[in-house]
């Protein structure tokens, strides 16, 4: 609840950033990111880049699972498609398309390809829901990785051995340091987030939410399930494809095993922890998923040093912490960190009166 936020027109009420707090937060974030890109230390830049790549993919999952209510455990496949497609298109187009223009061609193509495969994978969603759909999408993950590893495609994908990626060249500016890459990731991440926020206030977004809340009611109201379910799959796959393209640009080499089930599960876990169906959910989720192992590492390092013995103790601890966190959120706070933040903001807003 926000006080003193009078709107005198529908247009003002429908804005993406429809109150001063949101505006201040977004502009403040942009400023903070810009300063961080320029002055953040190398270690934090690295961690933030990994977060940014993961964030874009989780925003995609959020459109599908959080807003449309369709479960997917196979979105790692679309990250793989994005990463491989951008690399393969880059290699095929080398010498034909100027290097400085290549990313503007190969990234949209990779995203479009991911979206097209997304539609294909989304077909079962027209018939099945919940657990059945989760298993159907799970199959997509296995099939895509299997195809990438197949010998027939190995000349393009590098098969099981992986493939070296290209350095992105934006109109002659080569992003060959992690810091420059973070700049790109931050911009793309921010635009993705705002685009998702904007999507939800459109006719399409409202249709997604109607499907999530009660699909047959939505259909009776004239919302085509076929069209909107597939559109949701395509959009979420496109986001994951974009994340994959950035992944390929960020790392010098990609392997099929980087996109296996663990990645798909990580995306869903980040969404659950952060909060489904809310714009900031993916942001909080990704911060936690990436930071928890790092924080444990730093704390453990301070306590036990960098010895191999400490590493041996720490490795399972990181996984246990992650698992415990997931269970705790499912039990105690199914709406994720977003809900906790909301409560804090509400309490601050009403202070010194009743909390909650």
């Amino acid at each position, binding site marked *: 609840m926000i006080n003193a936020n009078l709107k005198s027109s529908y247009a003002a009420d429908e804005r993406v950033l429809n109150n001063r707090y949101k505006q201040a937060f977004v502009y403040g974030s942009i400023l903070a990111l810009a300063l961080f890109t320029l002055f953040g230390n190398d270690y934090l830049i690295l961690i933030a880049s990994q977060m940014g790549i993961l964030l874009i993919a989780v925003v995609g999952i959020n459109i599908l699972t959080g807003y449309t209510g369709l479960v997917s455990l196979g979105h790692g496949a679309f990250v793989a498609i994005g990463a491989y497609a951008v690399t393969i298109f880059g290699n095929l187009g080398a010498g034909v398309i100027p290097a400085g223009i290549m990313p503007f061609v190969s990234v949209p193509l990779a995203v479009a390809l991911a979206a097209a495969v997304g539609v294909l994978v989304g077909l079962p969603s027209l018939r099945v829901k919940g657990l059945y759909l989760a298993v159907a999408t799970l199959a997509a993950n296995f099939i895509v990785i299997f195809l990438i590893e197949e010998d027939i495609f190995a000349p393009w994908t590098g098969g*099981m051995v992986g493939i070296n*990626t290209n350095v992105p060249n934006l109109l002659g500016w080569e992003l*060959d340091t992690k810091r420059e890459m973070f700049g790109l990731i931050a911009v793309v991440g921010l635009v993705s987030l705002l685009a998702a926020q904007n999507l939800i206030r459109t006719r399409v977004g409202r249709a997604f939410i109607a499907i999530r809340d009660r699909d047959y009611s939505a259909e009776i109201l004239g919302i085509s399930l076929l069209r909107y379910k597939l559109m949701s799959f395509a959009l979420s796959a496109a986001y994951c494809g974009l994340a994959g393209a950035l992944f390929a640009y960020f790392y010098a080499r990609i392997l099929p095993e980087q996109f296996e089930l663990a990645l798909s599960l990580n995306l869903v876990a980040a969404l659950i922890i952060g909060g489904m169906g809310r714009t900031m959910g993916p942001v909080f989720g990704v911060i936690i998923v990436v930071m928890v192992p790092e924080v444990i590492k730093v704390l453990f390092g301070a306590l036990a040093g960098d010895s191999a013995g400490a590493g041996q103790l720490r490795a399972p601890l990181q996984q246990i912490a992650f698992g415990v966190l997931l269970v705790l959120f499912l039990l105690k706070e199914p709406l994720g960190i977003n809900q906790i933040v909301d409560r804090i903001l509400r309490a601050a807003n009403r202070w010194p009166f009743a909390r909650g």
Partner: protein
Amino acid sequence: MTMNRRSFLATTAAATAVIGTPMILRAQPKEYVLGASLPLTGPFATAGQLVAPAFAMATKLFNDEGGVAGVPIRFVTEDSGYVPQNALNNYQRALASEGKNMIGYFADSTGAMKLIAPELKGENARIMGSTSFASELANPETHPYQYLSGPTYQSQFDILLQNIKNEGGQKVAFIFSNTEFGRDPIEHGRKTAEALGLEVVLEESTKAEGADIPTHVTKLAQSGADHCILQGYVTGVWPQLIGGARQFGLPVKFKGTFWGMEKLIADRITAEAGPFLAGYEGVMPYRYFYDREEAPRYQQYAELSKQMFAGTPLENYMSTWAIQTMCGLEIAMKAFRDTAEAGLELTPDNIAEKLAGISDWDTGGFFGGPVSMENNAIGTGRVYGYNPEDGLFTPKSDWFTV
């Protein structure tokens, strides 16, 4: 002549060499850092956990000797779970947090080495050793900063195939794990076999752990091979394959490469299932730890192990895996020290140059004699055979260099 930084350094370095006192021209850091990723969890956790203590020993040993030109070294070890992506993340994290103080890295798999290789550019380059003998890495043109602590898997296959030929073998089977490490020498092995007039009757890929043994053994039986080379296993699968073949009554002779030559595993299998590993042979680049008479460096390790690992199984025996890691670290240390003694900055390029130039080096007993780096690898080894009665791998051939 104008005096710029480069010519000043060169002159000073020359002067230093004349005076004979090594000095570092860069402001010396308080310590040098060496990063490492180990498989402390995952399919090869047993090996990782046996190798881990070697780093504690190496820290003490190298620092007691004065580190690198008086600057102590520190190891930062992390778990990779034998996942290349994790090793890459560990490497990048170490790079970002340790910066220029980190002068080398030790990776734990062929996959990790290949994944990190293209990252080693400019500011992000560091000298990198590993547990891998991957053939692709033994190429200074494409992998200038990475080195092997022994012969490549391809060389090891060449040795075994020659050995099979000498024994009068005709039909060979290759059974390998479905990993980078398993697949590495297979294609090359096929060509070598053909050149030697051996027929490759089976190429069978299995899981790295928990493989479906009966199926693979049946295929081996159907192939009619008289010799079988196992590649790409560490703690599991290879003994089960041999055991399965023996239960099946197959007379096939098994051969292994470095990672299938660990006494601890062979002993454990013998204790559990009887002496079926009798006659098992394989390539090993180093002396075993119990062969210490002509190995002064091993004797030093033995004394340190007695002090540092008293009451643990490591007190009296160092695994082949730990020996391989120590050898990798010794090579890196030699390169660092040579660079420092020449009065050069410890940049990756300087270190790589010194490392590639190692020749006629007496390692103190790892190998049969003095060794040289060729194509960033040391192509030396020996065939050993296992005797279940005394639990020892004993030499079946002289030292050879490929």
